[in-house]
């Protein structure tokens, strides 16, 4: 019970500090669950995040459910998600009831223009940190670069990229000595990546 309460409070905090959707959640979540609470590792967050991208639903909800479930079973998953959703829920109710026109105040625009700059820097920091622990050679760097370019320049759906990256990972794992691999992928799982 106490653990569930702690989970709720932690995710409530993360939810309250996440401005701008799922991506902005990561730096805050990472700080709370790996640095402050030491509940899980950065690698695990990356795994959950990747899976959250290619499964239905909101990334933030999926990631919260994953972390909560890992710590306290399915009830933990539900509680963590509830905790994450509550602050946004309350704020939107407030917006809907009181000030439908918050965006009419210029000062709000200025404040959020400032906040967005900070969100950018925080996401870059998260990227650097996660990159250091997951990019260990040409193969992983190739996946990183291709996913980045495909998303930015060609708007390829993230779910597709995550699934392809998973397949590539398996194919590369099939070849024992793994010197290098390109971005081309092979759909036949039986063959293994041959060069």
């Amino acid at each position: 019970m106490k653990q569930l309460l702690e989970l709720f409070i932690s995710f409530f905090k993360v939810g309250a500090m996440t401005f701008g959707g799922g991506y902005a959640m990561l730096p805050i979540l990472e700080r709370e669950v790996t640095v402050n609470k030491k509940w899980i590792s950065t690698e695990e967050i990356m795994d959950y995040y990747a899976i959250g991208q290619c499964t239905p639903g909101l990334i933030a909800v999926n990631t919260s459910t994953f972390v909560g479930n890992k710590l306290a079973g399915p009830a933990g998953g539900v509680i963590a998600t509830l905790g994450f959703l509550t602050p946004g829920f309350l704020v939107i109710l407030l917006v809907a009831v009181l000030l439908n026109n918050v965006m009419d105040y210029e000062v709000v625009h200025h404040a959020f223009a400032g906040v967005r700059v900070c969100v950018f820097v925080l996401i870059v920091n998260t990227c650097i940190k996660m990159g250091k622990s997951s990019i260990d050679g040409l193969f992983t760097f190739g996946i990183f670069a291709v996913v980045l370019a495909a998303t930015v320049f060609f708007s390829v759906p993230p779910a597709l990229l995550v699934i392809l990256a998973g397949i590539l990972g398996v194919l590369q794992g099939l070849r024992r000595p793994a010197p290098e691999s390109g971005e081309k992928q092979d759909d036949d799982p039986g063959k293994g990546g041959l060069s």
Partner: protein
Amino acid sequence: MILDLARLFINFFMTGLFSIGGGLATLPFLYDMSDRTGWFTHEELSNMLAISESTPGAIGANMATYTGFHVASLPGAIVATAGLAMPGIIIILIIARVLAVYRNNPYVESAFHGLRPASVGLIAAAAVSVLQISLLHWERLGAGTWTELFHFKAILLAVILFILTRKFQKIHPVVFLAGSAVIGIIFSFAE
């Protein structure tokens, strides 16, 4: 009332079930919902998007709360938000269970070896899109001189924040977020 709640739940549950890749992926479904139900207009949807980008929480969840509230007040807000979140929760709980069994399977491990850098790539792509709206005037592309493309005050703030956040890693990010809001107000960041 009950009927409204049931329709809200079903509509948002379906949205949660079919939108893969986070809050923005719910948008096409929400536009479609707007056309079919008339619960909200396209303009309300884009206003809501702006509000969601500047308030805490997930964008899709905020949309659900807002719509639900307008259709059936507080119960509507709860039902719509729960409906949107539920498919993700159920699916992740199932995946987590399966994963727990195969965690040490070499194939699963190799798959994650490929997944992690992809995850970083997606986060970097998110950084690029935030970069476009925070440090650049992307909408001015092709109009005016190239120097107008840059939001110089914001770029300066970003450099300072980058140095500070790396130097003082113990300080909680929310301190920097709040500080940036104040700086944004003082120096009129929204141009």
